[in-house]
């Protein structure tokens, strides 16, 4: 992870986009040990995707300041953020703003998307997207419940829960799986409330063929 962190930092420093690249080969090889198994899809890691981070804090109340209220939209097909001006298209699949996650499907969206969280499983264990069970955003009733993370109210720490794997039907009706790894800048091993938050690190795999199989 140290090298990945470095890469994340490097990418940030150049101010460019966030695609960090392949996960360590060990991870992928571990999935290939049994020769009968089909090769899993390539997994990609995105580091430090900003999700409306504050620029400062109100000195009296401690409330965050400088937030825009805008979601950071993301496309699994390109592995890159999508401009907010494209929000009413099917170009994006998922959006992040603080701990709120939206999906490009539902009443107010133009995409064909949907999302569900599989609990008690792991990224590698999810080999096929379920046929049904995808929720969409309908007004204030969002598809992604707050239970995707644990909030420690005293330490004020958001922890994406291990064992939660998001399966996403994308804006164009393809499938992706995603595991959120960290909510903090540079994915520190033990974040504290002093670490800048609203920076997503996640792992994903995208099936461009339209099949539900992640292999």
């Amino acid at each position, binding site marked *: 992870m140290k090298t990945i962190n470095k890469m994340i930092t490097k990418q940030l420093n150049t101010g460019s986009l966030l695609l960090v690249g392949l996960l360590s080969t060990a991870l992928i090889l571990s999935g290939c040990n049994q020769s009968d198994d089909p090769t899993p899809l390539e997994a990609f890691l995105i580091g430090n995707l900003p999700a409306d981070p504050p620029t400062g804090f109100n000195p009296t109340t*401690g409330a965050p300041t400088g937030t825009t209220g805008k979601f950071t939209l993301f496309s699994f097909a390109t592995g890159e953020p999508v401009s907010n001006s494209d929000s009413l298209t099917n170009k994006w699949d998922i959006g992040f703003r603080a701990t709120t996650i939206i999906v490009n499907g539902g009443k107010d969206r133009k995409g064909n998307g949907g999302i569900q969280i599989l*609990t008690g499983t792991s*990224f590698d264990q999810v080999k096929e997207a379920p046929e049904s069970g995808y929720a969409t955003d309908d007004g*204030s*009733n969002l598809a992604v419940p*707050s239970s995707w993370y644990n909030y420690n109210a005293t330490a004020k720490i958001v922890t994406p829960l291990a064992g939660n794997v998001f399966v996403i039907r994308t804006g164009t009706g393809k499938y992706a799986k995603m595991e959120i790894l960290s909510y903090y800048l540079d994915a520190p091993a033990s974040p504290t409330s002093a670490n800048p938050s609203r920076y997503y*690190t996640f792992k994903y795999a995208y099936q461009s063929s339209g099949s539900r199989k992640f292999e």
Partner: protein
Amino acid sequence: MSQRIAGDTLSTVNLEPVVVTATRTERSLNAVPLPITVIGRPTLRSLGSLRLNEALAEQPGLVVVPQVNAQGNGLQLQGFNPDYTLILIDGEPLIGRYTGSLELSRITTGNIRQIEVVKGPVSSLYGSEALAGVVNIITEEAGTPQATVSARYGTNSTSNLSLQGGMGIKNLSFYGFADRYSTGGYDLSPERFGKTVSPFTNHTLQSKIRWKPFERGEFTLSGRWFAEQQDFAFEVKDASKTTLTDGQGIIKDWNIAASFRYRISEQTKLQLRYYKTAYSTKTNLYLEPENIPYYRDDFQQTFSRPEVVLNHYSNKSLLTVGAGAIGEEVATSRYGDRSNRNQFTLYGFAQEEWTPMQDFTIIAGIRLDQNSIYGSQISPKLSLSRKLTEAITIKASSGVGFKAPDFRQLYFNFNNAAAGGYSVLGSEVVSTQLKDLEDANRISRYYFDPKLIGALKAERSLSFNAGADVKFSKALKGNFNFFRNNVGNLIETQIVASTIEGQNIYTYRNIRRAMTEGLEAGLSANIGSRFRIQGGYQLLFAGDRDVMDQLRKEKIFYRDPETLVSKRLMPFEYHGLYNRSRNHGTIQVFFMDGKNFESSFRMIYRSRFGIGDIQGNVQGETIPSSDVNANSILDRYDRFVPGYFLLNWSASRKLGKGFTVQTGIDNLLNFRNTIYIPNIPGRLWWISATFNLKSNKHENNK
């Protein structure tokens, strides 16, 4: 009468102590079929404990833990949080659970004759709160002719002065006690503003009068008054800023208890009791250096209870029946306004102690509580003991315990604007508050259907205890006890909604199930006439039963924080609930030369434990949670607070008639853990002098 507390003396004559808490009648300790720890006056004196937390912390299986805000001292019993143990003074409940647990340092040991700790639920006699067990603090009786002055000074400018006296004139008996305790506090991180424990001073007054106007009846009246003032200086820190504050906290409590006992016949006794108590606390903090009001908090609680108890003795049985009513009232700024919130309980109980043959006792009891908020509770209990041989007595018991939802869980209306902005609403106010927010269009989304938030039910447990007392020889005694507690309806916070400003709104629900189980064992050996060695041990497993189910279904994972790789967690890798140590034990060595000199050397061990999200900040330090691998449970790959040893020593010498000096060092190894265990100060040295004007008769008992 004077023999009843003599069993705890260091002499080798083993008189069994008499206990009252387990059955509400005086019983020899070994005749009671429940696990009980007794700490008598001689032991308290030998330990040199000034406050209740110091005395309890030296007992195996009794773990004194910081409270919710990482300050103070609460009692963990059989793996239960401090909220679940009832604390009584002379059989009457202590109140003031502002944050759930009772602050043990409120209680001085100066007037304590005996402390009885009953493990396992005793709701069948005492109702709510007696779910994990009961601690009963029995103070000195009126009438014992004595006068004692005691003074002590030690590290941190801690001083204590205590006076007590008793006398009897014909059918009137008196007892009076006055105590002043003052400490400069202590500072575990001196590089930071303020102290870990701020300086405080408190005073305790107590008096008792007993009047026996005729042979069959007696009146008693007792009162206690306590006041404490603490001078705070805090560094309040969050993501954006650090604020220096100072101010004052005041705690007051008082109680009055009146009783009339009447012997109707040789077989039947009647007891009428009335008890009233009040507790209040007030905190004012100011921003420094400008001295601007920053934080204000107050809390007032009253509790009153009339009760009638009837005992009927016959050849092989003792029947105890009782009934009473409890009125409780709370007013605090944290409930939105300062108006009074009330609840009212009616209760009745019956207990039959049956001895069908010598050496065999069965006790069956049941209590019914009818409450204006949580409805009715039925708490049965069955226990038995059998003396198998002269050397071995086996004991077993099973019972139901409960804890009523507290005022905070019912009426909390607290908006923590500073700490990230969240609100906590009690179950009785959450619906109307949510509706107001909705009408003002301030709810952005619901996480939980508010219609499903019902009235809170009492938390309940079903418990089993089984064990034996074994006399290996005249000088060597042991005991052990297995326990298992299944707890349901545990009340937890539940996120309900968030506002358009992004503030989360929480309420309370009966969500969790848990269990605690383990083994308690003790061994006591007299070596020659001068040494006594005592050892005690508790093995404890405490877990969330829903988590345990999920683990069995292979549904729980953890994410390595370094590699970010997720793996499945095996059931045996789960450590259990936060703040529980697998092992806890004590070893105590007492020495007396038979005349004037006594000394004791004591060790306490607590194994590693985890810290969850229930801890606050100490001196502005952030407390990292033990869970570092993203599954919000404690497992073997998480970061634990290391286990520790404490060593304490004391010695005393009688210099002349009634005059004794004593000195001691607590925490000889100077163990400290600034962030996780702020309630353990470093090494403490102290010296005291006691003068007994008229020597206490039962302490000289041999």
